[in-house]
């Protein structure tokens, strides 16, 4: 029934005004990401320009900026500078991304470095090995330790749902992380996110895995009144997939979550298709890929 329910969201028909509004909303939720070994300062600066104004052609109303640019810690200073004065936030992966296999000390140092360089948000990975071996306290402890280092920076916890494999594991892990992050402190709405994947493996943000996170977040809200954010990432390339995600958010946790403060989509190429579809809604014909992709 999980797969059936997740598939039902893809059957919603999003047309006309709801499509236009949905595409713009999706743009505003994108964590524009590049996590390659070959990332250069120049490339990242170009990405930042695109993050601030995603559409080269002016549209009315204007296409919003994306939510954040997500990079490795080393590039945080460059991104910080390039995004200065904009609403776009600086997100850095940390804690030994993507495998999380480094010793905890090094992972905390990694986080510390990103924070000191000016990251607004930290995307951490958990020790999937510890979770799969049943050492749940270890996972909870590391989430709290990273949270400590983060201070005011927002924390997104990557579960890597593809490695957790089963729905039971994914749901249990989400509950564990949310509980660990909010056990000893008053968490503000949107201060903590659960995120599906690193984007470095497949399967990543499948509809069922995102649904499980949303359900966990919904149940936490019903119990505590605190809104945890959700970020699907990995393999979301098409505007249609982004709209399906918005439908799922709307029908699972409700309208409140339809804001970049509580829902993000981690992606690199998705923005191109979103812009292309937005151009289509205004022009009535499709823009070529080379018209929209400027990075």
């Amino acid at each position, binding site marked *: *029934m999980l797969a059936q*329910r997740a598939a039902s969201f893809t059957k919603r028909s*999003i047309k006309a*005004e709801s499509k236009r509004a949905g595409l713009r909303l999706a743009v505003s939720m994108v964590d524009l990401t590049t996590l390659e070994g070959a990332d250069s300062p120049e490339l990242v600066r170009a990405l930042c320009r695109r993050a601030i104004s995603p559409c080269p052609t002016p549209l009315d109303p*204007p296409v919003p900026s994306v939510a954040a640019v997500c990079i490795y810690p080393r590039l945080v200073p460059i991104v910080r500078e390039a995004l200065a004065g904009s609403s776009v936030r600086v997100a850095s992966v940390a804690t030994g991304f993507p495998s999380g296999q480094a010793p905890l000390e090094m992972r905390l140092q990694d986080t510390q470095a990103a924070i000191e360089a000016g990251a607004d948000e930290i995307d951490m990975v958990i020790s999937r090995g510890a979770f799969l071996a049943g050492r749940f306290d270890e996972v909870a402890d590391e989430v709290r330790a990273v949270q400590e280092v983060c201070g005011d920076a927002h924390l997104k916890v990557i579960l890597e749902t593809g490695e957790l494999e089963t729905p039971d594991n994914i749901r249990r892990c989400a509950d564990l992380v949310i509980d660990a992050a909010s056990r000893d402190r008053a968490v503000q709405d949107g201060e903590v996110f659960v995120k599906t994947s690193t984007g470095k493996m497949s399967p990543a943000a499948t509809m069922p895995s995102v649904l499980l996170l949303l359900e966990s977040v919904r149940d936490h809200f*019903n119990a505590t009144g605190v809104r945890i954010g959700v970020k699907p990432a990995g393999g979301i390339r098409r505007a249609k997939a982004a709209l399906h995600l918005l439908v799922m958010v709307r029908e699972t946790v409700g309208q409140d979550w339809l804001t970049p403060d509580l829902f993000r989509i981690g992606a690199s190429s998705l923005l191109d298709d979103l812009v292309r579809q937005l151009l289509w809604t205004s022009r009535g014909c499709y823009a070529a890929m080379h018209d929209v992709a400027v990075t």
Partner: protein
Amino acid sequence: MTQADSAVAAAGWDYSPAPERTRPEIDSEYGLFIDGEFKKPRSGKVFDTINPATGERLARIAEANEDDVDAAMAAARAAGPKWARMKGRERGKYLFRLARRIQECARELAVLESMDGGKPIRESRDVDLPLVAQHFFYHAGWADKLQWAFAGRTVRPRGVCAQIIPWNFPLLMAAWKLAPALACGNTVVLKPAETTPLTALHLARLLQEIDLPPGVVNIVTGAGETGRLVASHSAVRKVAFTGSTEVGRTLMRETAAREIPLTLELGGKSPNIVFADAPIDQAIEGVVSGIWFNQGHVCCAGSRLFVEESILETFVAALRDRMKQLRLGDPLDKNTDIGAINSQGQLERIRSLVRIGQEEGAILHDVQAAPLPSKGCWFPPCFFTGVQPSHTLAREEVFGPVLSVMSFRTPEEAIRRANATPYGLAAGIWTDKGSKIFEIASRMDAGIVWCNTYNQFDAAAPFGGVKESGFGREGGLHGLRAYVR
């Protein structure tokens, strides 16, 4: 946030209307399909078929009287010997051709089904039509393999079959009835329900297009009286009926007196049992599918929900939240979850049972935010808590989007209460524990038991009930048995 985003946040993001634009051609008047042709009724009488979502007339339909039924029976009898003698692989070809033709016309038929019956296009498009095609494909495969289906026997067709089908899945029920009968070499007189005859009549056109020999399938339209004439005709060698238990009883008396074999698929009051260890969100989906699929116009609807007491409160809250997400409205909008009630008569029955439920002291939960459309037949999805086993709502089939929620403490209590009904069509069990599934499933008085799922249909899976839900099976090898001797 930019201005545009805050505008979205303030107004909320909703779905724009997404109407299905395909419009099938609907004639103003339909005759009776007899001997391969549409004929004017000798009765000279017609009746209207209504779009329940708007209250508007879609077409005038012929009403068959005794003479008309006689003509249909004569055609079926005349076509019988040649059709029965035909090699199975040749009969199979007709069925394959029909299945493919149905797939080609799937969109038009789905729209027609939604217009005539009120069910959401999402369901007629994604559930009804694929299953209709599958049913013909599946039985086309059996047509030349009957000697393996019935090992050691040489089976022969029964002859003329009288088949009477209901209004909740008009085309799908026609497929369930026609496909096995034709595969086994029988000829048929089919009577669709009076509120939903259109798709069966369009199916008749497809039968013409595939050159099915005249008389092999005859379709006569009309109400209960026509059905009685069809079932009690002297040419009939087999009766198959899907519908109410009341009519089923009458048919049983009449066919028993004439020693005519009969299969019945009647009403239900099926239980859905949710244990505390079940994955709640998934059980909720099963309950939703169980009771609100096709506005609850489903004979196997899971209309009694038993929840383990320790999770009752959580479950009811989750069900309320989920119910809020159901979108009621235009059946032809692709985002509609709950369409129109099939007919005014059915709407009144649902209203009266809900009123009785309230009078008897059960608590109604109804969360539809939007007002119901002003025209047409509508009833919001709802459920009752505080239902006692003696309440009318716990005993009588509503055949509408109305669920009765009850609780239990132990598995024994769940089994006892689930079985405490005259019906026995389906049951759903929700638990994470495999041993519990085997134990409970084996003790359900029901023809179908779904475990951690609900409403799964397949042409290869026999469907049918026990007790007052009927006897005989449709689909699978078991479904063929009724059509051979």
